[in-house]
């Protein structure tokens, strides 16, 4: 490198992206700032940069997810990385191979970055401790989904200017939601206030220790917040006996136009998708003036580009 190019170099911000728990505000801000620049790249006539030429990324999806996988794949291609995709259906995982064996085999083909979605909480940390490739957690059980948290934060920041001091209500099945957890960690680290709302059966016992208050009543919550992040209600929660019926859930926790109008203020509505229209969110809210749901999808690609770019910036064992 020529001495002339030495300006503007900063210490690296990330080696893996496993979660937002414990990630300090300056690092999150760096990722979001970088993502802003990638959003600009995505608007260009040629929405692609050569930054990760020669980097190979493996997308390992041990759990179904169409949109997250597509978003990561697009992010990788926009950065000029080579990608390989692996999903459990029809793979050797069905033949009893362990997670570590599967990943070590893939890594042996010289893979630099592993993006993993897995049903077991903590699996991405388990992997990061045992392989040389860098790991991006694309959702591990009920633990974390950091890129979703980051894209939600980027969406809020772009819409409302700053995260500090904002009031964010997370609505729905908090107990089983990695999206909720990543949002809570990330937002609190950046100085936002977070409260959660949902049926008592779907609020985790550790809510208070995470630093979030529970608001049992949705109308109270809407009165309080600037942003409401509506979580998907997994329909199997009903058969598990955690909610009495969809109808009852919709009546008490469904986000409707009526409720938003009653709150009589500007509220930004988000949803990580896929939506159960008419259950946790009404169509006229999802498609209405409050909604930034499609911006979230667009921001997802930029945030994933930023994460992949920043973790690829240097050797894992340096510094």
């Amino acid at each position, binding site marked *: 490198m020529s*001495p*002339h190019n030495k300006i503007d170099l900063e210490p690296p911000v990330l080696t893996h992206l496993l979660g937002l728990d414990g990630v300090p505000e300056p690092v999150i801000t760096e990722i979001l700032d970088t993502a802003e620049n990638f959003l600009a790249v995505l608007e260009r006539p040629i929405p692609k940069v050569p930054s990760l030429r020669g980097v190979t990324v493996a997308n390992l999806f041990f759990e179904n997810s169409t949109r997250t996988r597509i978003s990561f794949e697009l992010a990788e291609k926009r950065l000029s990385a080579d990608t390989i995709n692996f999903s459990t259906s029809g793979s050797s995982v069905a033949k009893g191979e362990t997670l570590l064996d599967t990943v070590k085999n893939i890594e042996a083909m010289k893979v630099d970055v592993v993006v993993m979605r897995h049903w077991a909480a903590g699996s991405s940390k388990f992997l990061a401790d045992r392989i040389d490739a860098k790991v991006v957690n694309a959702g591990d059980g009920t633990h974390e989904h950091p890129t979703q948290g980051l894209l939600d934060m980027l969406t809020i920041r772009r819409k409302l200017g700053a995260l500090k001091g904002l009031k964010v209500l997370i609505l729905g099945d908090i107990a089983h939601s990695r999206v909720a957890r990543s949002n809570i960690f990330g937002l609190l680290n950046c100085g936002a206030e977070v409260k959660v709302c949902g049926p008592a059966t779907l609020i985790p016992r550790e809510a208070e220790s995470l630093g979030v208050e529970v608001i049992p009543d949705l109308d109270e919550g809407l009165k309080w917040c600037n942003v409401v992040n509506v979580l998907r209600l997994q329909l199997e929660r009903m058969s598990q006996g955690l909610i009495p019926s969809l109808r009852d859930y919709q009546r008490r926790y469904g986000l409707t136009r009526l409720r938003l109008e009653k709150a009589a203020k500007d509220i930004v509505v988000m949803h990580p998708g896929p939506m159960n229209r008419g259950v946790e969110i009404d169509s006229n809210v999802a498609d209405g003036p409050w909604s930034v749901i499609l911006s979230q999808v667009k921001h997802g690609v930029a945030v994933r580009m930023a994460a992949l770019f920043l973790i690829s910036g240097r050797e894992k064992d340096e510094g």
Partner: protein
Amino acid sequence: MERTLARLAAEIVERNRGAGNIALIGIRTRGAPLAHRLAKLISSLEGGKNIPVGILDITLYRDDYLISRKTPKVRATEIPFDIQDRAVVLVDDVLYTGRTVRAAIDAVLDYGRPDRIQLAVLVDRGGREMPVAGDFVGKKLVTSPGEEVRVHLEEVDGRDEVIIVELSSESA
């Protein structure tokens, strides 16, 4: 420095037969204020004509990103005009290895197809590692790899000056 920039502005206008089609794109960091200064000078030569100015961040196009020990900060690229069929003049403070200019050319081409791309630099210090040459050069300096040429600008550093630093005298 003022005089050198005035000469560069005049050369840019002359080579492009007027300012009709010219757009300046400064390469971050110090190319940006230089591009703004040149635009002002060209504008006054051409009866107040508005000269579009863009700012280019080449971080995403560097050829050493994956091998560099530190992570460079990605900054915004701002090209608020269509570069299609324009005479794009890249502006930077120091021309050395040519790698920055190579990256900048690649970056500009991702915004469209300009009519031509030219290069204006305040200082050409030799030491090229790529087949790159400046079209408009303020001053040629003969330097060795152990030296660093630093351009300080009023807008960034509080004063205008060009200094040559012996790298061995500092912990580089």
